[in-house]
């Protein structure tokens, strides 16, 4: 996990209380998700953006301490790195997108079965079908070419 950037004075700042204040909001979304899922599989996600809140580094560390670390860790390597991990509360995820130099660009709490960033998009899947088809055709052509060479030998 990449360390959050350090600052000059924030170490001296007491916790603002925002980490505790967010927990009821998280549980409200989690409860909603649990209710929706009782009716069948559904894709729904609620996101709380921590960068939009005046939280100190200590606040965010405190929040992560309360949420804990769960069973899933994922790394998304596209347009910079992203860390995605499930907290100790199933369905509550942390998604953190980095720029280069490990600067945090997006720092979210995602309440979902799985965060959308981990799901493959239908257009990319369609493109994969074409790409894999090309690969198979190329392999078959290579195979034919190599058989022809052997028969010539």
């Amino acid at each position: 996990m990449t360390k959050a950037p350090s600052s000059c004075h924030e170490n001296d700042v007491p916790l603002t209380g925002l980490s505790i204040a967010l927990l009821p909001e998280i549980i409200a979304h989690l409860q909603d998700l649990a209710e929706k899922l009782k009716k069948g599989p559904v894709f729904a996600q609620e996101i709380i953006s921590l960068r939009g809140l005046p939280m100190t580094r200590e606040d965010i560390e405190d929040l992560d301490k309360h949420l804990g670390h769960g069973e899933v860790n994922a790394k998304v390597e596209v347009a910079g790195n992203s860390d995605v991990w499930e907290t100790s509360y199933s369905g509550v995820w942390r998604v953190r997108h980095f720029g280069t130099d490990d600067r945090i660009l997006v720092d979210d709490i995602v309440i979902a079965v799985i965060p959308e960033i981990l799901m493959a998009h239908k257009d990319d899947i369609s493109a994969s079908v074409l790409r894999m088809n090309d690969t198979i055709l190329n392999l078959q052509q290579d195979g034919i070419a190599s058989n022809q060479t052997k028969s010539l030998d």
Partner: protein
Amino acid sequence: MAKLFKNMFATSESTALTLGEELAQKGVSRRQILKFSSYVAALMALPASYSTAIAESLSKARRQSVIWLSFQECTGCTESITRSFSPSLEDLIFDFISLDYSEALMNVSGSAAEAARKQAMEENKGKYIVVVEGSIPLDKDGIYSVSGGHTNLDVLKEVAKDAMAIISMGTCASFGGIPAAHPNPTGAVGVHEIIKDKPIINVPGCPPIPEVMTGTIAFLLSLGKIPELDHLGRPKAFYGDNIHDRCYRRPFYERGEFANSFDDEGARKGYCLFNLGCKGPVTYNACATIKWNGGVSFPIQSGHGCLGCSEPGFWDKGSFYSPLSTPTSGLGKAAMGAAAVGTAGAVVASLVQRKRRENILKAAAVPKPTETKLGADDE
């Protein structure tokens, strides 16, 4: 969402590739666009859940023609938007626009550059975005700033005529800025004092935060309309709160704990910089939340008061080191309730964020993304 884009790109060349198609050819996956969209949503204080809708819209859009005009300025705004950016997520914005003219960045110069500007204006009549950096001198018919034999005033009027919208980038283009500071020898003014018949978005700051600049452009691209603006024409998503209200040192102000010089105990303890001239209480900008250099710090966090650079006439408001006013005697009483300030402040901040989102969404008329059944066809 589709309707918004129909309006914005109704007459776009139907043969041109959509951004989704164009980026797919370059090997940019939808996951990458989604990541960028969540970045934009976070910047604009939109509910991050809307990132899916923004990603879909961006994929269906076409490259937006942008003409960037440099007038009376120091090029600090261009420096801010280009130099601070790393070739990763934030860089994607440059894949979404076609920067058809920029004196600072384009390779060609002279008549070839002017020809590129005229061609972009002709091909994208009524659809291009104009970004203006710098103020425009009016005295002596604008003779104080001339490029290619044309005054800034003439160029602005000519380019603005067929523009879809204008973004005044930086305090100079927004309000006149430093060129307009007393005694304003060139009669410098901001864009809105000259152009009256086009939508103008002011993005002040000296310079503006890079994310605020790209966020505003991305909002225009992805939602196809002007973001909600405050009374000074600034996007409320970024300029909706004042620095003081969002400052992490606010609890010290409430408790009456101040730094009185830059090297006293209060300064070392990170106390409020009000007495050292901080203009945070009267300055509206996103420095306290988005911060600078990718969220590393902002002036107050580095121990210096806010200069108020995103406000009109900031250079002429007296010393940067004179306090706005003497703190009121009520501060002692405020200290009595200090224990409650932390949590109460946090709840208020969360509510402010939610309220702001609601307002922005109302203005943008963004439809709430519908939930989709897993496995169902979402077409």
